[in-house]
């Protein structure tokens, strides 16, 4: 099922070089390099606080890096005019770690907002489309007119995914999308991302702690540790990398279980 689209010959969609981020004295990234190729699903893993969310925020331009260059669709976000930047940002879909839904809008209004603002749809059309996106993300129909405060944590994640998908973005940034989902929902989520990627050719930057997602959905995995990307490669290559953290991560009890579940025959 997995399409091996990640070929290094293609020009990357996102190119990060020499990135440095710090908060006061606290250095989060130093000389970090990362590529995201068109049509691939890149899993980004790392311990808590290693700067995965900060990396995501700097790529989508919410955080101005101290040093380094981030090219998105071949252009440097920070040096663009506001107009050009807004046009570029329309091609992004972002799911934030805590959902970040607009609390004073109902779910369908949350998802319809970008459709009305950017795609110029009429409100009724946008809301009808929004309801379908919510259903795709696995929410029941009656949830569409609820407000974020009335939802469970997992439902917020799903609604945030629907909003990230609203404009069928070319680049999808997901910060721990399956955290807080039930395992059935998480598996359905993996399938949905794969289906969308295959049909629409999305590129996905997927921050996750979910080993099953890593095994079922990701083409490549980037490991963030010690302020940089240690490796970014196919899963088997990453898992075989000689590093204590990586070894513990992939060969700990949970890593082994997820691997067994993904390829039942190959298990040694």
């Amino acid at each position, binding site marked *: 099922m997995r399409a091996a689209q990640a070929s290094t010959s293609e020009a990357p969609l996102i190119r990060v070089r020499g990135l440095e981020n710090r908060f006061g004295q606290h250095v989060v990234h130093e000389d970090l390099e990362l590529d995201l190729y068109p049509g691939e699903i890149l899993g980004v893993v790392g311990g808590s606080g290693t700067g995965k969310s900060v990396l995501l925020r700097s790529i989508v331009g919410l955080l101005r890096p101290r040093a380094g260059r981030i090219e998105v669709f071949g252009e440097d976000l920070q040096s663009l005019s506001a107009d050009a930047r807004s046009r570029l940002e329309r091609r992004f879909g972002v799911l934030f770690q805590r959902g970040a839904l*607009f*609390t*004073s809008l109902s779910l369908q209004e949350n998802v319809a907002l970008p*459709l009305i603002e950017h*795609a*110029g*749809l*009429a409100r009724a*059309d946008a809301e*009808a*489309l929004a*309801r*379908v*996106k919510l*259903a*795709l993300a*696995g929410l*029941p*129909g*009656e*949830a*569409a*007119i609820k*407000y*974020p*405060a*009335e939802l469970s944590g997992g439902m917020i994640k799903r609604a945030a995914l629907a909003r990230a*998908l609203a*404009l*069928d973005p070319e680049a999808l940034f997901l910060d721990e999308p399956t955290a807080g989902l039930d395992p059935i929902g998480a598996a359905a989520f993996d*399938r*949905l991302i794969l*289906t*969308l990627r*295959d*049909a*629409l050719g999305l590129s996905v930057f997927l921050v996750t702690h979910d080993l099953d997602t890593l095994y079922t959905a990701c083409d490549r995995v980037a490991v963030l540790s010690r302020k940089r990307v240690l490796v970014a490669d196919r899963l088997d290559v990453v898992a075989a990398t000689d590093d204590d953290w990586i070894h513990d991560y992939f060969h700990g009890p949970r890593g082994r279980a997820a691997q067994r579940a993904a390829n039942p025959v190959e298990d040694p």
Partner: protein
Amino acid sequence: MTEPGHIDQQDGRLAIAGDWTLVHYSTLKRQVERLAGSREPSHQGIDLERLDALDTAGAVLLMELVGPAALAAIDDWASDLPATRRALLRTLGEAMADNQPPTARPARPLRDTLARTGQMVEELWQQQRQLLGFIGQVLATLAATAWRPGRWRITSVVAQLHQTGLNALPIVALLTFLVGAVVAFLGATVLRDFGATIYTVNLVAFAFLREFGVLLAAILLAGRTASAFTAQLGAMKANEELDAVRTLGLDPIELLVLPRVLAMMLTLPILTFVGMLSGILGGALVCLLALDISTAQFLAILERDIAVQHFLVGIGKAPVFAFLVAVIGCLEGFKVSGSAQSVGEHTTSSVVQSIFVVILLDAIAALFCMEMGW
């Protein structure tokens, strides 16, 4: 390649052609709706061979044309479509197959208006009840902690004192100074006709000691601090921090409300005193510059004519106002529900309510003092 999406009708068959994407959504939607009037949704007679680009928006329109069930079974009737595209359409069909649209309530204008009016009256009544209940709760907590110095939260009272008192000093002083000058000007203008400009001194002193000092300071705190209390506690409520406080076995009233209330009750008398002084100062300056009443003369008149009871009447109201303003600010914060909009609504409500209560009480107090001859 980039032909806009459209539907070709030939010999009773519908050929889906061109790009079915978000960009062409409005035109496609119109065509689909026109067709939907004349036929039941089904996949009969639909050809997908000439379909170019397709995204989820286009897929949704296709679904309106053929129905979710037919879309879920796309493999049976459009097997020549690429597998990836079929997967998308199938996923969409399956997601929508048993998805009931939310039922909107029919609008009944007259009934809804009546219901809203009733609801508002009911809410007004409930609000007063809640306020009284909350005051009781705060007083009970105060009484319970008063005898146990170990549970006094000195640090947070001091922090609140800093924010609500010290930081508000300059603005209170400036405001009352200006109003003092204005009152003196008013007095001078009106009293000149009677040749009694000297009584401007009495006017300013009376006004500021009895009413304006405390009223201006209280209104300023209502705008500045009650709103801050509501926004702080409201954001905490929305973020479930208040629930966390409760589950940790702590009392939010003791932890969050009491320090704020106590700080306000200490702050407002001090601010009132400052307000009185700087209001009188403003008046004195106008007297000096516009009426040729020297400062020594001003002070002499103050000493001779103004009894200390006027000061006591003024400053005595301060703790009461402070208590109510703080309690209203905190209570509105507790009433916030999850949304950002609700924080805004309750902040507005807390400022309006506290200013209203302050002015109402002040009017009642003025009446009472007049009758008592104080």
